[in-house]
């Protein structure tokens, strides 16, 4: 009997400890004070992936340099509803500016309107929100610039002629299909010697991309190059080429980030890939918002302190364009994103 009572007491104590710990957790999370510099909040598609951590790095740099407090908060999955909830809580907190890399171009329009009505600057960066209530958009690079740069890298790698194949992600992904169309356009206009023999789709899955590339390699033995259109297709294709012992014989390039492709650049299977620099993108976003908050107008071409390139501004769509894509090769593959 005593034993049971003892057990009971212990259980009760455990319960109490749990409750206290919970309360402490909540209270700790709640301890936040409003700072004097303007607060800029950024809500990425999701948190916990290197790409958006790199954008945050750039935003933080801009915040330090231009005097802003940065809040970086996002959902753990690329969820529209999760993003909306966080944006709403930031609006209710009356930050100076709130923005997103949008999971949906339309789902945040109502919140943008609400923010504007409360004199909060609403912006989008990386992936844009439609509608008239978005005060500023920051775009990484034009689709054309990116697609053309990839074809230029491909032509350089295979000497301007031969059969090539594309491995893309989802067959319905709007951005990927736009890039493919522009790549075809570049091939037709500038590299008539390069022939696109096949386009395959592997989703957002590295293993699937490896499998699909393996099939391409056996179906087209004269293949000179493979282009990965999304960030998982490039390392997947490189893996297949490496496994088939064709490193150096079949060139692999495409659109991906340094973290994904580093091992293949280091072992020589891949010479170069193309992306934009998300750190610069975050930095430019921070600068652009500070300009807006201080009511300084943008010019057609802007000099941004801390960025090498000039940044163009399109007044009609209120868009800042970061500029040329970044070619990632052995010299700069140590970038962490």
């Amino acid at each position, binding site marked *: 009997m005593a034993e049971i009572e003892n057990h009971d007491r212990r*259980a009760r104590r455990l319960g109490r400890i749990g409750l206290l710990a919970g309360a402490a*957790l909540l209270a700790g999370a709640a301890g936040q004070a409003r700072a004097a510099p303007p607060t800029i909040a950024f809500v990425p598609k999701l948190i916990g992936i290197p790409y958006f951590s790199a954008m945050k790095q750039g935003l933080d740099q801009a915040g330090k340099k231009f005097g802003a407090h940065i809040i970086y908060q996002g959902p753990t999955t690329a969820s*529209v509803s999760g993003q909306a909830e966080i944006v709403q809580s930031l609006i209710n907190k009356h930050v100076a500016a709130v923005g997103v890399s949008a999971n949906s171009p339309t789902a945040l*329009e109502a919140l943008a309107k609400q923010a504007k009505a409360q004199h909060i600057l609403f912006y989008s960066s990386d992936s844009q929100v439609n509608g008239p209530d978005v005060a500023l958009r920051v775009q990484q690079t034009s689709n054309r610039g990116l697609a053309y740069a990839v074809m230029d890298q491909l032509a350089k790698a295979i000497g301007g002629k031969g059969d090539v194949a594309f491995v893309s992600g989802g067959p319905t992904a709007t951005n990927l299909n736009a890039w493919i169309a522009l790549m075809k356009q570049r091939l037709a206009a500038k590299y008539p010697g390069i022939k696109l023999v096949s386009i395959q789709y592997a989703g957002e899955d590295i293993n699937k991309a490896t499998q699909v590339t393996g099939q391409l390699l056996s179906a087209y033995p004269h293949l000179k190059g493979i282009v990965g259109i999304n960030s998982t297709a490039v390392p997947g294709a490189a893996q297949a080429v490496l496994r088939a012992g064709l490193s150096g014989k079949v060139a692999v390039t495409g659109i991906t980030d340094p973290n994904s492709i580093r091992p293949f650049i280091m072992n020589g299977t891949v010479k170069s890939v193309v992306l934009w620099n998300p750190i610069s993108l975050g930095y430019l976003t921070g600068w652009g918002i500070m300009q807006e908050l201080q009511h300084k107008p943008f010019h057609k071409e802007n000099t941004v302190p801390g960025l090498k390139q000039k940044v163009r501004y399109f007044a009609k769509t209120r868009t800042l364009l970061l500029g040329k894509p970044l070619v990632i090769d052995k010299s700069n593959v140590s970038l962490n994103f």
Partner: protein
Amino acid sequence: MHASGFDRTRPLLLLVMAAAALGGFALGHPGIVSTQNLDSMAVFGIEIGMIALGQTLVICGGDTGIDLSVGAIAGLAQVILGRLLHLDLAWPVAIGMTLLAGLVLGGINAVAISWFRIPPIIATLATLFGYQGLALVLTGGINIDLTHESPLFLAIGQGHVLGLPLQLVALYLPLLAAFAFLQHGTRFGRALYLAGTNDRAADLAGLRASRIRAATYVLCGLVSTIAGIVGAARLGTARPDAAGEANLISIAIVVLGGTGIFGGTGSVIGTALATVVIGIVDYGLSYNDFNPIYQAGVIGVILIGVILVENPFVAWRDSRRTNGA
């Protein structure tokens, strides 16, 4: 315990938790207790709250009853609605057709489980993937833009009545009242508890347990559809992945609300209170810039915590009762 399986301990505990959570957040950030914030909490809690009402009945019906496809139904319903609206149908007509589709989606679960005797976890797992896939096919993976639809339609998710969110006053509260009445005030409700407690006894009493359960899946499909419609109107957008997280969170809310996972106990009242707790905690953590990676963990801690706190309390109460008798 009440004859209909209603137990007061959990609802009281949840009320205390809701007050404690709100109080805790207010200690650090007094601004959180503003009409604007409470309004947002309600708006974000309502859709999952509606789904949880349906899930309560399903789980209450016992025989390992569970509906894993609720989020997929909400997403698919939203997409169906979006396609219909883009066909230039009047919005009330489109909503009517979507509700019918929701009944069919729930009905498929019901038939699979009650007719073909497929275990609920497998049947609804299968429909989860099926409905998700169908939603993807219907959209081609693209976002359906509804921001230019009738303002009256958008008001379903964005409007206000007497300063309160329209979907709270016009949809959630009436649904809650209807479900509470169904569960505690009708023959169907009592039959559901009996079916959940003892399948054979229910059958011997002349109740068709499997038919009663089938009805719960249909109702669950219907409220998931309504939640999907509200979500589409709130965001002005229909997406196949709209409510993916609802599949599991709705179950967490039902269990937190005091419904026994093996059926035969619990109440939609408890579910509603659990929705309030989760709504406050979820929004409060975001509001305080709490790292969202840990937010899912917090829900887990609450779920375990409530049982750790409740068990000794129930044991103490029962021992006092036996001693007193």
